C-alpha cells in the first residue's frame, strides 16, 4: 500500500491503518493459523486505546521508518540518517557466506516498532515456571535477583528503581552520561550526531544497515575526559530498557584518558518472542582511553530438535581513535540458535591495543559463526585474540577472524589462539582465520587446535574420585579459563556455572 511519504509524515495516523478492516501491508492475507497473528489480534481488541501509540503494522517501507522516527520525536538529522540507511538497505543482498543455515527471513512479516510493554507482574516466585527456577538455582542467582529476572514484583528494599536511582546519582557526580539511546537523542543530540555511525557506518552490512534504519532503542554512554567510571555499567540498571530490543543500538564514547567497563546481557535464560536480533554496538576510545565490553549471552536456543530459538546477528565494532587507547571485548556465548557476530577493533591510534576473548558453546542444533577483526592502522599497535569453541551434540562452531596489518602499521603485533573442543560425533568445528600483512615489521602468529577430551585426562580425574560429569565440567572450565579471567568477577562465577548448565547431559 504505497503512500506519499510526505503525506505520511504530515498525516500520521497509524491507528487508522492498524485497525482498518482493509489489509494494510498484507497482514490480513496471512494464514489464519499463524499464532503470531492471534497474539496481535488479542492485543488489537484488548488495548484499543493505546495501540495506536505502541505498535506499527507489519512490514518495512519508507513510511515505517518515518513513523519510527516520528514516534521517537527525533530531530531531522536522525530521520535523514535512518532514511539513507533504509534506501541503501533496499539495494543490499542478504549475505550467504556464513557457515550457518537458517530458513529465509521474511522482512515484510515483522513488526519493526513496538514500545516496550510492561511485563505481567507476578506476585511470588511460586508462579514462575519451574524449569526457569531450577536454572536460576543452578546458576546461583540470589533470590531477590531471581524475582527481578522472572518479573516478580520486588519489595521496596530491593526495588530496582531505587537501586538504579542511587547509581544514577553516583554516575552524575562523575559526569558520566549513561542513558537510553532515545534520551540521548533528545538530550545530547550533538554527541549522538558526532559519533553515530562513526565506527559502523549506515551502509556497513546488510544487518547493520537494517538496524540503522529501524533501531528502536539502546544504550548510550559518554565518559568525559580523564574520568574513570566509578562502577561497571550495565543495562541491568537502566530501568526503561530492561527488555532486550530486537534492533538495539549501543554507542559508547570514552573521551581522552577515561575508562569504562560495560556489561551486556546476563546469565539467566531469556526468552524473547523476536526471532531476529540485529543489534549494532559502536565503541569509540579516544587517546589513552580504555573500554572494556563484556557480554554474556544466553538467549533462547531453541528446543532439542533445533526448533525455534533466536538468530543473533550483531555488528559490534570498536575504534581506538587516539594513541594508547585500548578496547577489549570479552564474550561468553551460550544461547541463541544462531550466533553470528564479529566484535572487531580498528586500531587507528598509535600504540593502541585491541583484545578479543571469546567462549562460544553450541549444543543440540545451535550454530555459531563468530570471531573478530583486528585492523592495524597505527604504529606499534597490538592485538590479542583468544577464542574457545565448544561443540556438543550436533552443535556447529566456527571461528572466523581477520587480522589485517596495513602498510603504515609499523611494528604491529598480533597473537591469535583459537581452540575447539568437540563433544559428540555429530558436532562440527571450523576455523577460518584470514591474515593479511602488508608491512614487514609486523609479527603475526596464529595457532589453532581441535581435539576432544582425551581418555587420559578423564581417567586421571576419575581415579581422583570425580564423577565423569564433574571431570568433564572441570576440564571444560579449565579450557575456558583464559577467557573467564577477563570477565568481571561476578560474571565469571556465573559464566562458569552457565557452561555446566548448558552442557548438562551432553556428555557420557
Amino acid at each position, binding site marked *: 500500500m504505497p503512500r506519499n511519504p510526505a503525506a505520511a509524515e504530515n498525516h500520521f495516523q497509524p491507528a487508522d491503518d492498524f485497525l482498518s478492516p482493509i489489509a494494510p501491508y498484507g497482514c490480513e492475507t496471512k494464514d489464519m493459523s499463524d499464532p503470531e497473528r492471534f497474539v496481535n489480534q488479542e492485543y488489537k481488541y484488548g488495548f484499543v486505546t493505546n495501540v495506536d501509540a505502541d505498535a506499527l503494522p507489519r512490514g518495512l517501507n519508507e513510511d515505517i521508518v518515518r513513523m519510527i522516527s516520528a514516534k521517537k520525536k527525533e530531530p531531522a538529522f536522525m530521520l535523514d540518517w535512518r532514511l539513507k540507511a533504509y534506501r541503501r538497505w533496499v539495494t543490499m543482498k542478504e549475505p550467504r*557466506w556464513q557457515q550457518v543455515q537458517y530458513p529465509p527471513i521474511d522482512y515484510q512479516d515483522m513488526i519493526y516498532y513496538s514500545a516496550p510493554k510492561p511485563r505481567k507482574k507476578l506476585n511470588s516466585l511460586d508462579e514462575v515456571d519451574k524449569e526457569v527456577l531450577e536454572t536460576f538455582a543452578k546458576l546461583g542467582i540470589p533470590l531477590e535477583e531471581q524475582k527481578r529476572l522472572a518479573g516478580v514484583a520486588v519489595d521496596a528494599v530491593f526495588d530496582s528503581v531505587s537501586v538504579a536511582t542511587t547509581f544514577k546519582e553516583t554516575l552524575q557526580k562523575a559526569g558520566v552520561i549513561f542513558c537510553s539511546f532515545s534520551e540521548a537523542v533528545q538530550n545530547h543530540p550533538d554527541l549522538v550526531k558526532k559519533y553515530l555511525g562513526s565506527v559502523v557506518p549506515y551502509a556497513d552490512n546488510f544487518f547493520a544497515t537494517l538496524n540503522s534504519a529501524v533501531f528502536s532503542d539502546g544504550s548510550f554512554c559518554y565518559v568525559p575526559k580523564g574520568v574513570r567510571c566509578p562502577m561497571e555499567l550495565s543495562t541491568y540498571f537502566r530501568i526503561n530498557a530492561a527488555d532486550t530490543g530486537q534492533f538495539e543500538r549501543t554507542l559508547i564514547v570514552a573521551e581522552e584518558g577515561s575508562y569504562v567497563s560495560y556489561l551486556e546481557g546476563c546469565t539467566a535464560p531469556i526468552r524473547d518472542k523476536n526471532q531476529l536480533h540485529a543489534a549494532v554496538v559502536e565503541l569509540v576510545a579516544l587517546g589513552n582511553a580504555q573500554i572494556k565490553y563484556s557480554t554474556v549471552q544466553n538467549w533462547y536456543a531453541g528446543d532439542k530438535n533445533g526448533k525455534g530459538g533466536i538468530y543473533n546477528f550483531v555488528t559490534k565494532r570498536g575504534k581506538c581513535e587516539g594513541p594508547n587507547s585500548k578496547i577489549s571485548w570479552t564474550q561468553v556465548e551460550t544461547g541463541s540458535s544462531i550466533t553470528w557476530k564479529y566484535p572487531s577493533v580498528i586500531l587507528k591510534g598509535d600504540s593502541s591495543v585491541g583484545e578479543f576473548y571469546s567462549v562460544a558453546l553450541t549444543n543440540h542444533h545451535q550454530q555459531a559463526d563468530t570471531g573478530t577483526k583486528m585492523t592495524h592502522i597505527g604504529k606499534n599497535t597490538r592485538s590479542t585474540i583468544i577464542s574457545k569453541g565448544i561443540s556438543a551434540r550436533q552443535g556447529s562452531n566456527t571461528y572466523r577472524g581477520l587480522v589485517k*596489518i596495513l*602498510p603504515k602499521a609499523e611494528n604491529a603485533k598480533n597473537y591469535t589462539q583459537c581452540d*575447539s573442543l*568437540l*563433544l*559428540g*560425533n*555429530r*558436532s*562440527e*568445528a*571450523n*576455523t*577460518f*582465520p*584470514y*591474515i*593479511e*600483512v*602488508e*608491512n*614487514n*615489521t*609486523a*609479527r*603475526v*602468529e*596464529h*595457532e*589453532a*587446535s*581441535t*581435539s*576432544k577430551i582425551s581418555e587420559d585426562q578423564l581417567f586421571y580425574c576419575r581415579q581422583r574420585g570425580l564423577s565423569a560429569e564433574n571431570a568433564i565440567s572441570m576440564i571444560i572450565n579449565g579450557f575456558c579459563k583464559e577467557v573467564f579471567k577477563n570477565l568481571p568477577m561476578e560474571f565469571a562465577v556465573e559464566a562458569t556455572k552457565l557452561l555446566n548448565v548448558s552442557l548438562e547431559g551432553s556428555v557420557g
Partner: protein
Amino acid sequence: MKTKTAPEIFLEKEKCLAAYEWFKKAEAGKSPSWLASYRDEAIARFRDQSFPTVHDEAWKYTSLEPFAKLAFRPVYRNDSGRINSHAVKNLLGKAPGPRLVFINGLYAPLFSSTAGLEGNIKMVHLGASWNSEGRLAERSWFPQENVRLEIFADLNSAFLNDGMMLQLPENFLVKTPLECVYLTLPENQKLVSYPRNLIVAEPGSSAVVVERYLGLGGNPYFTNAVTDYVIREGASVEAYRLQKETRQACHISSTRVSVGRQSRFVFFNMDFGGRLVRNHLSVVFSEEGGECDLNGLYLAGEGQHIDNHTVIDHLKPKGTSRQLYKGILGSRSRAVFSGKIFVRQDAQKTDAAQKNKNLLLSSDARVDTRPQLEILADDVKCAHGAAVGQLNEDEIFYLRSRGLGVKEAKKVLTYGFAHEIVDKVGLGAVKEELEHWLEDRLESVAHKEEK
C-alpha cells in the same frame, strides 16, 4: 593443422570456446572416442563456469588482470629446426635417470631418454599412447574430477594433448628418480601449454617422481598444468614439483592426489619463478589409513605473485596429514597461502597438522594467509598455525658480533629459515640444486634490500 594456425586464446570464455571448436575439428579422427568425449565433458564444465575474479572467495587475493588482455597461442607442432638445442641442453643439464622432456607442451624425443628404466615401469608420453595405453588412462582418470570444480583444470582437460603417463607396477620399488620436464620457449609469440601428468602407483610400489617447469626467453607465456597422482594401497610416492618459469610467465597448476589405504605421499612444491603463480593442491584420503607430508617453499621478489591453494580432505578414518609451507618475500612481491583441512564425519582418529610461515624481507612485500579447518568428526587431533614476521634483530646482532656483515647475516638467517624445508628433501640431486638456487636468489633478494 599444417595449413592453419590455431586460434589464440585469452583468459576469456568465448575465446576459449572458439579455440576449442577449432581444436576439436583438427583432432577429429585422430584421438580415440573416449578421449574426445572426455574433452567434451571438460569443456561443458568449463562453459558452466567463468574465469575467477577477486570477488570470488577462492581468488580474493589473486587477480588474473595482468594476463587477462594477452593473447596466447597453443603449439601443435614443434619446429625442431628452430629450437636452439644447445641452449635447451644447457638448461636441462644431465638427467639423473629416465626423463621425458616436453617443449611448448609437446613431447621432444631429442631431449628425452627412457634408458635405464627399471622393470615393467610404464613411462610414456600421452600423445603416443592414446590407443595403446588408453584403457589405463581411461580407467584411472581421476575419480574426483567432478567433485571440486576448478576452471583451469577443466580447461586443461579440454585441450588435453600431451604429457607424461607413469605406471609403477605392483610391489615394485623404483630406485632412480623419474623425471618430466616442461619447457616453454616463447620465441616470438606468446604461448600457452597444457601439461598433463598421470602417475599411478599400483599397490605396494614405491618411487620418486620429479616434475619440472622451466622457461626461456623474454615473452610472456601461460602454463596451465594438471598432475594426477593415484596412490594405491600400500604404495609410497615421493614427488617433487620444481617450478622455475621465467619472470614473464603465468603458471597455474592443479595437483590432485588420491591417497589409498595405508599408502604414503610426500610432496615438495618449490616455487622460484613465474610472475603470477597459482598452485592448487588437493589431497583426498579416500580410504582408511594413509599418510601425506606436504612441503612448500616459495621465494618471491620483484613483482612476483605466488599463491598456493591447498585442500586436504579426510574422508576416511585414521589418516595422517602434515603440511608445512614456508615463504620468503622480497621487494614488491606478494604471496598467498590458503590451506583447508576437511575432516568428514567418518574420518575418526584423523591426525592433521598444517603450518604456514612467512618471512617478509621488504617493506613493500605483502602476504595473505588463510589456514582453515573444517571438522565434522570428534575423535580427531587437528592443529594449524600461521606466522608472519621478519628477521630477528637479536639474531642479526649475534651474527654481526661474530664478524658477519649485515647482508651476510641476513642471508644466513634467511637461508636458515628455508632450510627447514630443504633439510627434508630426500633426493640428493634435488637438495643440491635447491641449495644452489637459494644461494643465487637470496643473493639477489638481499642485494635489492641493500639499495
